[in-house]
């Protein structure tokens, strides 16, 4: 996006005064029209971020970036949550089976899955799903978040939650159907990482004395696994929380593949229009979200495991 953002907004034939006015508005020059040094611009921006002001968008009514982001964030969060569920379901079961049948063919196969699935390129997997399940079989919609003509009242911004809250069952059905392919795509690609985490964690627990004791008492293998899983779950959950950045990156790619109206589509749209402030604001929001999740995970970890003290 090189090129003067101001010129890209006003066009090449704008008057000098108009350009100067806009530069002042964006904080690129001071009141007298002299260029502001970069470190001052940065300080201004930082100070504004702490006040919750991410600046105004450069296009279409120049709404505050924060509001624009908040419009698109719930869609991303909804997708991320469902993708997370799918990846836990696949990853956890793969990890448990793999640890339980260590060094067998199924363990090897699942470990290979762990390596390969991470390297799957999300848009491609998404498109294969679209081709197979949406275009050829017609089971699910190709793209979008909800059927056309359906409307969900805005409460949390998560369509599934909102449609349950308002008792709008047609909207619920439609939004769930739209969620299937994107969350499968996201979930499968992330599940490989989770399956490796669960495998390592389970192996560690399975080698402990209380498991040997349980085996010695002749408990059925199913019960032993349940005991082990309970103990392995805390570290697994913690490490999964720390993969949040991975999940978000995946969500961005999934969104652009499925025309999901979240942050990914927002970013793509604003890049095309050289909307610097929106771009900058989105990146800041992402960083804040990831830091927050890490913090929450740390706190939960310390709460659940009393041996951890900070």
């Amino acid at each position, binding site marked *: *996006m090189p090129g003067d953002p101001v010129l890209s907004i006003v066009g090449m034939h704008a008057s000098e005064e108009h350009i100067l006015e806009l530069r002042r508005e964006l904080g690129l020059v001071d009141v007298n029209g002299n260029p502001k040094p970069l470190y001052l611009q940065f300080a201004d921006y930082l100070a504004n971020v702490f006040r919750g002001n991410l600046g105004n968008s450069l296009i279409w009514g120049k709404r505050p970036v924060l509001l624009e982001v908040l419009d698109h964030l719930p869609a991303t969060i909804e997708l991320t949550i469902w993708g997370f569920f799918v990846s836990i379901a696949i990853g956890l079961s793969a990890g448990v089976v793999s640890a339980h049948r260590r060094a067998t063919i199924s363990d090897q196969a699942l470990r290979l899955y762990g390596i*390969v699935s991470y*390297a799957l*390129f999300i*848009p*491609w997997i998404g*498109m294969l799903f679209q081709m197979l399940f949406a275009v050829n079989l017609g089971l699910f919609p190709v793209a979008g978040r909800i059927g056309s003509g359906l409307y969900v009242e805005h409460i949390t911004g998560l369509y599934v939650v909102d449609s349950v809250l308002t008792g709008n069952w047609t909207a619920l059905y439609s939004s769930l159907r739209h969620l299937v392919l994107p969350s499968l795509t996201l979930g499968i690609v992330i599940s490989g990482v989770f399956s490796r985490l669960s495998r390592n964690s389970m192996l560690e627990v399975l080698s402990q004395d209380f498991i040997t004791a349980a085996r010695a008492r002749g408990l059925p293998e199913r019960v032993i696994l349940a005991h082990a899983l309970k103990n392995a779950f805390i570290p697994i959950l913690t490490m999964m929380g720390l993969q949040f950045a991975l999940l978000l990156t995946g969500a961005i790619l999934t969104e652009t593949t499925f025309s999901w109206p979240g942050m990914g589509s927002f970013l793509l749209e604003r890049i095309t229009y050289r909307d610097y402030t929106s771009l900058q604001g989105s990146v800041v929001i*992402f960083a804040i979200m990831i830091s927050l999740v890490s913090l929450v995970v740390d706190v939960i970890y310390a709460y659940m495991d009393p041996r951890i003290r900070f």
Partner: protein
Amino acid sequence: MVSLALEFSRVVSRFIPRGQGIGIALAGTGMVAFVVVLAVFAPYLTSYDPTRGVGPSLSPPSADHLMGTNRLGYDVYSRILYGAQTILVVVLLSTMISMIAGIPLGLISGYSGGVVDRSISVVMDSIYVFPGLILAIAMAAVLGPGMINASVAIAIVYIPTYFRMARGQTLSIKEQTYIEAMRAIGCKARTIVFRHVLPNILPTLTVVFSLNVADAVLTEAGLSFFGLSVPAPIPDWGYDLRAGQPFLPSGYWWLITFPGLMIIMLAIGFSLIGEGLNELTSPWMAKK
């Protein structure tokens, strides 16, 4: 004769490490080598110009066009071949930049400790907070399209990876007796770090390198999918994948199948190399 053959195989097998690692690493090397061969011999493998319409629009794979043509009549097969050049150059260039910046910083940070260490670490951690692709997108959007710019954008994402690796290794190596001996005989810090610490982090570096390149491949593909890597007519797999998507509902499967396959083949290849090397260099991990 038989005993000679036995002796020979015994000698050879001593140089081939055991364990599952080697199989995985070899499979990965095969995949990567395949893509490299396509990239290097692209001009000999196709006679079509990848940036010009050379056939009818949207024709399915045939003897003339092995992977069909796209909307503008470009030959998909030749775009795959030349696209291999693009992604390999961008990924390797960006990895070089990350290493050149990250490793010395990590060495200095780890060896000197104190304020220097803390301030470099804070900067690195703050880069590390951002999700890789999103940071690369932001950087690439600001820098503009182009091979060098895309490489720089991706490089910035991975500097902390190399930094952390180098710093962590340096921290443990500098406690070793031989480093203490170096200091005792009055060796300069610079000599110790670059002549004695650096060579010792190379085994770990190879593992981190191949795993990281796999990641960089996916990031480049992502950037290119967003249209932020090299400018338009230059062949690039991620961009071609995106360009082919609108034709998916009409059944033009060849537009997306081949670029996607290539991307994941390259990424899986590098991951397998990394995982294989990891098991070979740290066997206790394999047992776990």
